[in-house]
């Protein structure tokens, strides 16, 4: 494929840039002086052993935690200190490592919540079923079905999210995040718990997202998936970056091998 937005040696301005991010939990540095750039249209993987600080890094990027130090610049704007919902509205969406769907709501309702900040109807208009609110409602339903179709979940639209098999719950998390219409999507171990077939489906969906112009950051332990789809890989260990480069460079990096061997011996 010939996508112009594919990173080609720094010609593009970074969509997202983290600068010296640090976060400590009671003396333990979960993320230490982490800086990186993500270019528009790329797929960047973040890997590292358990407890390396990957999820914490996501929490810093999405405003769930405030960093002790450092800043996050998204589309030229410093977003540290903004509330999570404001960051989502700017165009950063995420999924959760431990699934956090709204289990008692239907599949389509889950996705419709993702469209929340694209719609306006407040308490009064909703209670009185104002025409504008009804139009929004119809639009949300249509749009959600379209997004469910991308994730291959349209047949499940009216089932409770909590009743889906595990793999489909993961996909629904992606669909729901997609509904916020992000510029950049942060996936936290989306393939964990998926079987081989579901994992390759997920890979297809991520490709399709990139074609739709969504930039993707992927935290993942499934090395097959990471090496197959990412343009760039960043390796964290004990909260610090130990390597960064193309999948091929990373595969041969002795520090990476050591970090992974070290963790496997545990």
């Amino acid at each position: 494929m010939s996508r112009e937005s594919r990173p080609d040696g720094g010609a593009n301005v970074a969509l997202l840039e983290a600068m010296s991010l640090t976060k400590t939990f009671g003396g333990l540095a979960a993320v230490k002086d982490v800086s990186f750039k993500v270019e528009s249209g790329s797929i960047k993987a973040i890997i590292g052993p358990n407890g390396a600080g990957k999820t914490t890094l996501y929490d810093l990027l999405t405003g769930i935690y405030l960093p002790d130090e450092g800043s996050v610049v998204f589309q030229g704007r410093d977003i540290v200190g903004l509330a999570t919902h404001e960051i989502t509205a700017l165009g950063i969406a995420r999924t959760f490592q431990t699934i956090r769907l709204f289990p008692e709501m239907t599949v389509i309702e889950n996705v419709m919540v993702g469209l929340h900040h694209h719609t306006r109807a407040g308490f009064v208009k909703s209670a009185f079923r104002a025409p504008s609110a009804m139009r929004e409602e119809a639009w949300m339903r249509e749009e959600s079905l379209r997004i469910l179709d991308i994730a291959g979940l349209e047949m499940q639209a009216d089932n409770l999210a909590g009743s889906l098999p595990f793999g489909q719950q993961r996909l629904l998390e992606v669909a729901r995040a997609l509904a916020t219409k992000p510029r950049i999507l942060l996936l936290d171990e989306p393939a964990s718990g998926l079987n081989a077939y579901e994992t390759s489906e997920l890979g297809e969906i991520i490709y399709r997202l990139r074609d739709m112009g969504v930039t993707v950051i992927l935290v993942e332990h499934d090395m097959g998936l990471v090496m197959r789809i990412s343009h760039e890989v960043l390796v964290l260990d004990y909260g610090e970056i130990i390597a960064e480069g193309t999948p091929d460079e990373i595969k041969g990096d002795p520090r990476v091998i050591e970090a992974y061997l070290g963790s496997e011996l545990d």
Partner: protein
Amino acid sequence: MAGEKGGKEAAAGSRFLALLKRNRALLIFFLFILVMPLWAENVYKTISLDFVFIMRLVGVYTIAAVGLNLLMGYAGQVSLGQGAFFGIGAYTSALLTLKAGFPVWVGIALAIAVSALFGILVAPVLRLKGHYLAMATLGLAIIVFVFLREMTWLTEGNFGLSGIPSLNLPFTSITGFDLPFIKDKAQRPELYLQFYLIWIIVFAALILCSNLVRSRVGRSMRALHQSEVAAEAMGVNVSAQKIKVFVLSAALGGLAGGIYANLQGYIDPNMFTITLSISVLTMVVIGGMESIWGAVAGAAVITFLPKMVEAIPKWVGDAPKWLERYSNYEGIVFGLILVLTMIFMPSGITKGLSDLVRLRRSPFVNPFRRKAVE
């Protein structure tokens, strides 16, 4: 073309029929309320249960309960303070109509406003979660009660306020008002008028609330109930949304309280203790969390119960004496109802009954059956 137009009309007609069909339970209930005064007098004569009289109160409590259900059932924020907003609404309307001479409907409108305002004022408690929030709102209810009792210069404390102007339609006086089915002029036209007035308000509140919970706003409430972090990450301003629901819930509590004061004509602080908060909470739980129409069922059960107990001595000559002093053991009854519902019918009466009718499934849960380990 004519045929096309006919087709359109037919489509609109069938859509209207579909609307009626979808809301048939509501329709049936509406008719039930509409014709209640026709048979209520006879029922009163035979079994000593004054339906119209009691149903006015059921209406009042329904409003308070539906407000709490939005907050607790849908948004998942447990509050033991609904009685406080009820009390503030009652005193606002009572003082304004009694002492300042405001028309009753203005008094009630301001009762809504003052309760909502108080809701905004205390909204920071929403930063607390779960049991802590329940405790803080319980504290709120106690504080409001103490203030109502001790600010004697305004509220006249335990003496209460009596002679509160009675609930009627704006700009009309009750005298000379005739309802076609009241043959006996000695009957109580005021009672019937109040009954209809209250139920018009109740239906309006219930319809608006059920629209609300099925909208974007309702979904965001249910979402933040199930995962605050995920709701935030989906772009929902969780803390703002919680405050708005809390204030709406307070406003509905205030509305109920305002109507109550003008209905009873007399109020004192002991009507608005934490027992009131707990009884509204009981209504929500037995009616069913996340159920707008459950509020009616819950309010009906809790309101009819004491009246039925009161009526028992009139049915059977030798009823035991202790039975008559309902307020003495009211707390035990609430507690029992709460515990039994939570164990045997955790989704409430309304959901239980609709499951029974629609799915032919028993509404009871067997608490002794072992659940699959998750």
